[in-house]
């Protein structure tokens, strides 16, 4: 489609999209810029889009003490182990649903779909994890409740259903069992969708703070978002950080630096992840 002149609506669109772009980019820039600005500067002159004086106090505090490393370890553990388990469990279930086995696939679909509509709520979950499973202060108290997201099951089912049926038929004729077909044919053929679903889970685990807030009391086991939340709501956590000789703890600058540190990995993985995410959402949107 070629056009000679710009129509008013196209101009409006360019302006609109540019504004949205700035609205989404500037806050992050402010965080990063602020994290390099000294506490006193932040308190007196407020924010500027570029740090007036380059100050690394907060980053020094973060990287010299064990507290933030602990939090990083917790977040990485929860994300890596959680994503691996979630992917394995989701793939297994999705495969059985995708195979359209009479008497099995349909009931399983309803079984997995129902929790999206009706849930026991917070109290029974809380009692289950703390009173019956005794998972408090274990990283698994964050991992297990988030293990399967029904939405992602349906994304994966529709992806599995796009694989050519004939391959499985011929494998069956060659004497392969269901497990063998799954592990040696379906999974290797589904790497792109596994990447999509894995990314969704990974972001979910990396950002979770609610399960951690509910079930983790031990500050040494806090994942990053919970450390951040603690820095917002009370300053007790700063006591765990190594004190620098100079002055009082730069609480505010510290928050910004820690925020920058916690979005760092997402920022790095983003160019790669975003492409797959778009694929995942559009697959999910075209109904399971």
């Amino acid at each position: 489609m070629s056009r000679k002149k710009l129509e008013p609506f196209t101009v409006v669109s360019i302006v609109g999209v540019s504004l949205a772009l700035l609205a989404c980019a500037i806050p992050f820039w402010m965080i990063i810029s602020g994290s390099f600005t000294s506490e006193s500067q932040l308190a007196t002159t407020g924010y500027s889009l570029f740090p007036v004086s380059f100050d690394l106090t907060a980053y020094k505090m973060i990287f010299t003490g064990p507290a933030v490393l602990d939090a990083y370890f917790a977040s990485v553990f929860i994300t890596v182990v959680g994503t691996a388990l979630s992917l394995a469990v989701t793939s297994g279930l999705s495969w059985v649903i995708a195979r359209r086995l009479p008497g099995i696939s349909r009931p399983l679909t309803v079984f997995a779909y129902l929790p999206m509509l009706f849930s026991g709520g917070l109290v029974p979950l809380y009692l289950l994890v703390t009173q019956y499973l005794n998972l408090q202060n274990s990283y698994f108290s964050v991992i297990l409740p988030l293990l399967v997201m029904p939405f992602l099951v349906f994304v994966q089912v529709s992806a599995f259903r796009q694989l050519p049926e004939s391959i499985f038929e011929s494998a069956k004729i060659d004497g392969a069992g269901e497990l063998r077909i799954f592990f040696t044919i379906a999974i290797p053929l589904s790497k792109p969708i596994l990447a999509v679903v894995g990314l969704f889970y990974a972001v979910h685990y990396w950002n979770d703070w609610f399960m951690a807030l509910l079930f983790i009391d031990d500050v040494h086991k806090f994942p990053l978002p919970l450390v951040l939340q603690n820095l917002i709501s009370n300053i007790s956590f700063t006591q765990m950080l190594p004190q620098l000789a100079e002055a009082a703890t730069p609480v505010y600058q510290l928050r910004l630096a820690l925020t920058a540190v916690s979005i760092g990995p997402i920022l790095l993985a983003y160019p790669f992840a975003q492409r797959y995410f778009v694929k995942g959402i559009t697959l999910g949107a075209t109904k399971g």
Partner: protein
Amino acid sequence: MSWSIGLLALPAVVFFLVFNYLPMAGLVVAFKQFDVNLGIFGSPWNGLENFAYFLESGDAARILFNTLFLNVLFLGATLAAGMILAIMLNEIRSTFFKRVSQSVVFFPYFVSPVVISIILQVLLAGASGGGGAVNDALGGLGFPTVDWYTEPGPWPWILTVVKVWQLGGYLSVIFLAAITGIPEEVYEAGMIDGASRAQMAWRITLPLLKPTAAVLLVLGVGRIFYGDFGTIYAIVGDNGTLFDSTDVIDTYVFRALRQLGDFGTTAAVGLFQSVVGFILVLIAVLIQRKYSKETSIL
């Protein structure tokens, strides 16, 4: 048929049983006078007392109103924003600019609510508490500054802006995919009839996006009784001065659970939430089915 295929689904089935279906049975706590030492099933029954306590507490009306009001705002605003953004993105011919803006507006979806909360503090409070970028701007333009974190009034709108910011880009991807599915001939016919770009967006694209919006709406209505706890609690926390306009069922339940340890009442509130939510989904699905059968999700 081979039994071995069952093994593949087994872990997921166990997960759903333990973490979804067992808690449903645990809802009997709502009808009990819960005692930690006696456990869920050992505690004595107390009928509907937990429900009565909640309804008579004076909090019920406020949190029910807030929950519905905020969710309707969020749902309407995010869907509208996603749709408008997608239509605008679709107008842009420069692939580079389009790709960059799409990536950037999608990014907020990837950050934790806690990060959003910090960003809000930067904008609304600043390091000194009464400052922040928004107040700097207001002051610069000669308007009075606002002590945002003590004013409950503007918060429904602030939270709506947050939700739009967080989800607008995400939803625009879904709508953009739907726009891609619209056959090119429809636009060519419009062009022959002399339609402007604006008229084509308004008369062709927008109506054809309705089924997608309907599906998202039904999914959203299903969640309407859940207050998006993660975001609201990360932002408001235990700041009681804002509860008037921000306290929703989920934050209420969490606070009651954490601070009062009143399991019976909070479970009663949770049960109420689940039942009403379930009824709302059913109604939404039935309505949607009536109007467009082919896009129905059930």
